[in-house]
């Protein structure tokens, strides 16, 4: 703990007042209340260096953190989720959707992208919790099935990164059927012999946990991530007991055998690369090959051998 972090920052905060802290310069840690310098925060993968709190990040921040050189190609998912039920509670669902779109600059609660991870082709489907609590409706379910299809097509590993309160109630049963839909999608990836990895982030609950998110070949969770089916309050009301602080937290779920490992953000990329590599580069020869099994590379190799053959005919 340095003089700078402990003393100067709170003072600056006091000086300029809470609301005047420029968004792009400082950010308050929601867990320990310390003011954090934005640039440092981004270098530290949005983890508070005072209390290790894993800050909520957007789907695109996830993608930048994971893909090689932060480069990836976004996959278009259905542009618009219409409002099939014409749902209205205290507000119209269509208005809620529009607000979420304006606020997040995303069309839906999921972003699908392809790219390389340690030189290996991967498809990542990442949730945006800020978009209506990352809830899974038709468009999100479709995003997941599309990501699975692309993984199959490109012979790529599939990584899903849920952050979700569960099904999107405003789409009624059309959201519940996304459970079987996404189960089929990831099952098809597994049947193709491709790795399917789930990175559980805070929070992953309800119908999202009870479908594609619990069917990974490997389950990784971020430290402290809440992973469960029913909500804490519902459980407390049912059993009439107060639940311990760490209930449904990643570390406890690890003890209960539901996830393979809890991995800090800083280690995530290397961990994913190592796991995928172990699952697909099966021989010492495979390790030597660069850009293993990437479609582009296969084509390049094919062209190369065509040229070599031509050369032979000329010489021969």
């Amino acid at each position, binding site marked *: 703990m340095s003089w700078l972090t402990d003393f100067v920052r709170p003072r600056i905060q006091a000086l300029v007042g809470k609301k005047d802290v420029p968004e792009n310069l400082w950010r308050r840690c929601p867990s320990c209340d310390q003011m954090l310098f934005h640039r440092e925060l981004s270098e530290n993968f949005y983890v508070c260096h005072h209390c290790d709190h894993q800050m909520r990040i957007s789907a695109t921040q996830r993608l930048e953190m994971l893909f090689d050189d932060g480069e990836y190609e976004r996959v278009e998912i259905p542009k618009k989720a219409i409002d099939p039920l014409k*749902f209205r509670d205290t507000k119209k669902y269509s208005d809620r959707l529009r607000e979420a779109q304006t606020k997040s600059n995303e069309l839906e609660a999921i972003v699908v992208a392809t790219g390389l991870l340690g030189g290996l082709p991967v498809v990542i489907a990442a949730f945006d919790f800020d978009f209506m609590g990352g809830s899974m409706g038709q468009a999100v379910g479709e995003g997941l099935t599309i990501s699975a299809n692309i993984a199959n097509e490109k012979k790529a590993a599939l990584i899903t990164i849920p952050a979700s309160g569960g099904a999107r109630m405003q789409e009624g*049963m059309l959201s519940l059927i996304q459970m079987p839909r996404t189960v089929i999608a990831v099952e098809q990836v597994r049947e193709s012999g491709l790795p399917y990895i789930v990175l559980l982030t805070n929070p992953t609950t309800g119908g999202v946990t009870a*479908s594609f998110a619990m069917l990974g070949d490997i389950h990784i969770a971020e430290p402290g991530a809440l992973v469960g089916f029913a909500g804490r309050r*519902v459980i407390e009301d049912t059993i009439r007991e107060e639940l311990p602080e760490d209930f449904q937290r990643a570390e406890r779920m690890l003890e209960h055998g539901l996830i393979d490992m809890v991995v800090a953000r800083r280690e995530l990329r290397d961990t994913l690369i190592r796991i995928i590599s172990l699952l697909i580069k099966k021989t010492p020869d495979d390790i030597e090959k660069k850009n293993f099994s990437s479609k582009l590379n296969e084509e390049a190799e094919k062209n190369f051998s065509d040229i070599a053959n031509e050369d032979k005919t000329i010489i021969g």
Partner: protein
Amino acid sequence: MRHFLEFEKTIADLESKIEELRHLSDGDGISIAEEVGKLQNQVNKQLKQTYERLTPWQRVQVARHPNRPHSSDYIKNLITDFTPLAGDRAYAEDRAIIAGIGRFRGWSTIIIGHEKGVDTDGRIVHNFGMARPEGYRKAQRVMELADRFQLPIITFIDTPGAYPGAGAEERGQAESIAETIRSCMSVRVPFISVVIGEGGSGGAIALAAANTVLMLEHSVYSVISPEGCASILWRDSDKSLAAAEALKITASDLLGFSIIDRIIYEPLGGAHRDTKKITSIVGDALDEELYELRKLDGDTLKKHRREKFLNMGRANLI
């Protein structure tokens, strides 16, 4: 003792009058047949009027009616040689889901259903139809058995939802539901589900990812209970009625979205007024649907089931 719902007051009054008359006639032998007949006609008229235009919230009440036939009633009336199977082979026997093997119209069949229980003791034994992970894991095991011996699967759906308990969470409630859906999607046998009462969220769809999904006229099938939805979205649990409307949980709504395949119409005044009749109607519907599915081979059945769900609702996306 018959249980009347809040909107059945007129019917309850008429039926108690009939009871009184019958009681009187016991004593002095006066013929009251004509009077009883008249009253019975009025009851039938009232039942028809009321049940023809039940609101979604009223249907929720009917779907949860304590006298509504449960999985065990369908098994009793439709399955011979029923042989219950117990346990997940790992931790426990969960009676919220009953499963077994028996003959449906001569055909050896696997039966799985949520069971709510009839009286107070039964409800506790069956945990009100709210299954724990062990119940879902038993269902997986029995589905695998069906697959190995090429036996069709019939499931009866009737649950408020999966049990929200601390132990259930820690033993992997979410994982058990996800794996059960995967089992549904993997079996190479005819698979039919009937929503007989309450189709409550993930705990229901875990057993209902079938080739053909039938739904009783007054059953409901929903992503969340209207009460739960009201307290989350309206922040007011008194808005259950509005939530029940908005969520589109009735059989006709869901047929419209192609989420279910067929509505099974109930006897006058609802399934709870005639267990014998509704179970036989359901039996006939199952027989017809199984006849169609038996024409397909195992791989086609599996493929059909997956494609059906993958295509569901896609037309709504732009």
